[in-house]
């Protein structure tokens, strides 16, 4: 253990002198968390609305006003014809075009039935779906208003089938509650894995590794000495991140934070060990970086934070069984938002523990003091 201590002391001293690396390790994650968490919002509002009003009636005016009073739409263009509005859709100036045909008001008052047309830019499928469903509800509400009082009384409160949604664990649908813990573990994994990936192979390139290889140092001591300093850095990042999550983003913390800490301590060993494994198997920093990048970007994009794992094809879901981010994000959400206990999350925790042991055992095995 004493040998490991000397290694750690050395790493910390080198780190202290490398200002850029230190900043990347201690400051960058916090900046990224704050910046990206405010941006990572799937909520769709401020959709650009163009209008083609061929009726110019008060009735049309009132419906248009209703669109503008919601946070979902903002009127950006008024066009004389559908053809002109088509250009807005093409150029991306408008997401939605609302078309009032001539005689809209007359049809509504005399015939009791009128129609408006919605031209939707469907390039982004989610945006398009939401835009048309928001628009339909606005039109529905408008219809209720224009209905004469006598008719409304006669019809009564017939509402048909009512669908009542209930959003458990996040009733206000606050996206930060969902995103912040996920982005936090992504940033931490990214940084600690990159730093360890470059560590051993850098000593190889500089040549100092050879001097270490002629000492009687044990392979596990070497790996442990490389791992621990960055493990501490990862826990530091996690601490600051949790504080920000609690006090800046108001993420609820229903379950035991201590439990989450303990699990995070186990989890961190996975990206760290993976970095060390790649590092000890690589010849140059360039090579190591690209291999690590390959794994990291897959871990990050497929972890379910950005698109649901449930919708991915079977092979991608199968891959996600070995994606450590999937487990830790799931555990973090369950503990923080649902108050899950260790019993509830035991299975993913054991999986992470298994991964941690495996990758580090591989790293020790792959680190060669002797070549040829």
């Amino acid at each position, binding site marked *: 253990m004493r040998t490991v201590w000397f290694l750690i002391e050395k790493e910390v001293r080198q780190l202290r002198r490398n200002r850029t690396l230190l900043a990347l390790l201690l400051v960058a994650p916090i900046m990224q968390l704050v910046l990206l968490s405010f941006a990572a919002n799937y909520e769709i509002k401020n959709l650009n609305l163009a209008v083609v009003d061929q009726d110019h009636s008060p009735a049309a005016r009132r419906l248009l006003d209703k669109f503008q009073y919601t946070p979902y739409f903002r009127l950006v263009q008024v066009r004389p014809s559908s053809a002109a509005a088509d250009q807005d859709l093409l150029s991306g100036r408008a997401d939605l075009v609302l078309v009032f045909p001539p005689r809209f008001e007359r049809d509504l008052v005399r015939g009791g039935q009128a129609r408006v047309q919605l031209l939707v830019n469907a390039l982004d499928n989610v945006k398009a779906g939401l835009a048309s469903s928001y628009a339909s509800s606005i039109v529905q509400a408008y*219809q209720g208003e224009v209905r004469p009082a006598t008719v409304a009384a006669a019809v009564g409160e017939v509402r048909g089938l009512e669908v009542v949604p209930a959003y458990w664990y996040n009733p206000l649908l606050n996206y930060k509650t969902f995103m912040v813990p996920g982005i936090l573990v992504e940033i931490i994994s990214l940084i600690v894995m990159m730093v360890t990936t470059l560590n051993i192979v850098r000593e190889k390139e500089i040549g100092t590794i050879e001097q270490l290889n002629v000492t009687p140092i044990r392979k596990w001591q070497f790996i442990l000495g490389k791992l621990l300093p960055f493990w501490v850095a990862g826990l530091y990042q996690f601490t600051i991140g949790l504080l920000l999550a609690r006090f800046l983003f108001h993420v609820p913390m229903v379950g035991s934070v201590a439990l989450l800490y303990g699990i995070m301590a186990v989890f961190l060993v996975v990206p760290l060990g993976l970095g060390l494994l790649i590092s000890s198997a690589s010849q140059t920093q360039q090579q190591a970086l690209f291999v690590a990048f*390959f794994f990291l970007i897959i871990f990050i994009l497929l972890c379910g934070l*950005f698109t649901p794992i449930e919708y991915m094809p079977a092979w991608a879901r199968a891959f996600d069984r070995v994606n450590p981010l999937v487990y830790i994000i799931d555990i973090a959400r369950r503990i923080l938002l649902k108050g899950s206990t260790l019993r509830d999350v035991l299975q993913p925790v054991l999986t992470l523990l298994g991964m941690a042991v495996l990758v580090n055992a591989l790293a020790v095995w792959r680190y060669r003091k002797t070549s040829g």
Partner: protein
Amino acid sequence: MKAFLMFVRKESYHIFRDPRTLLILFGMPVALVTLFGFALTNEIKNADVAVLDFDHGVHARQVQNRLFSSGYFGLRDYARNYPDVAAAFRRGHVKLAVVFPAGFSSDFDHLGHAQVQLVADASDQNTAISLVNYATAIIRSYEQEVAPHRSGSPGPRVEAVARLYFNPGLKAAYTFVPGTMALILLLVSAMLTSITIAREKETGTMEVLLVSPMRQLPIIIGKILPYFLLSFVNGLIILALGVWVLHIPERGSLALLILETLLYILVALTLGVLISTRAASQQTAMLTSMLGLLLPTLILSGFLFPIESMPLPLQTVSRLIPARYFIVILKGIMIKGLGLRELWRETAVLFGMAGGLLLLALGSLKNRLA
């Protein structure tokens, strides 16, 4: 000029002599674009659902049949009470529970009004919202069919007729594939150049070049050119994958598409050069390009999150992300069939970025010499 060509040749040797680098260069982008092109989607398929049926009536059964024959949902559990639902959510098996209260069917038949509850696990918010939206739509269509007279209440009616442009099938690929292409092309090109130059600085060969009689601009161009060609081949492969494997249409001008891709690659490479001239070591160059480019491009480019919903300061930050413009250009040319007349603004911004980054890189090279 002769010296310049020699220089380009030397750079090319470095690249082609190392098969591992080549594999990384060509194999990795192909693997990643294909992988993400297929895996990233927000189209619901067979989502696991729990049912909590206190009613056991005809309508409850019919609604369930509708849900589970739609292809969007699959029955996972029958819960007996709310704690069962909570337990299922905690285990993470299901994300949505459909609750039929007692008397649901008879209320609907006799009073003409009944409630069905959709309980969603909103700790996974996106999934929750989309599941609720899909399920609501299916229940609505059932209502329309069983009791058309009820929904069509008397009085004036306004009908909204929606027409979907560009992507009537609402395919998720049209959103995700162009974003993936922009992300991968930027990262691979920028990282590769930044590392290569930082490496030369570390091994000292850069000093030799800088004291040589060659001017700085030729040095930078000579460094970039081989990677430019490589990245261009990469770009072509990625475009081909998009069209033939991931089925994104190519409705606009192919020539324009290729030229815009070249421009984007140029921005990525100059970005890499700038990072490497500023970084003290390979290590910092690599960490800066990975940390500075990966997550910001992913989150701020409009690839995954709508830019209009971001707070204003971040909308401004997103203007600095090259991928934001390239995504608009890709979608514009490929899916909408636009030309330069509609896309000149994005193109001009990319031009400006390439020029600005090149000037900055030259500036920091000069500083190092002084």
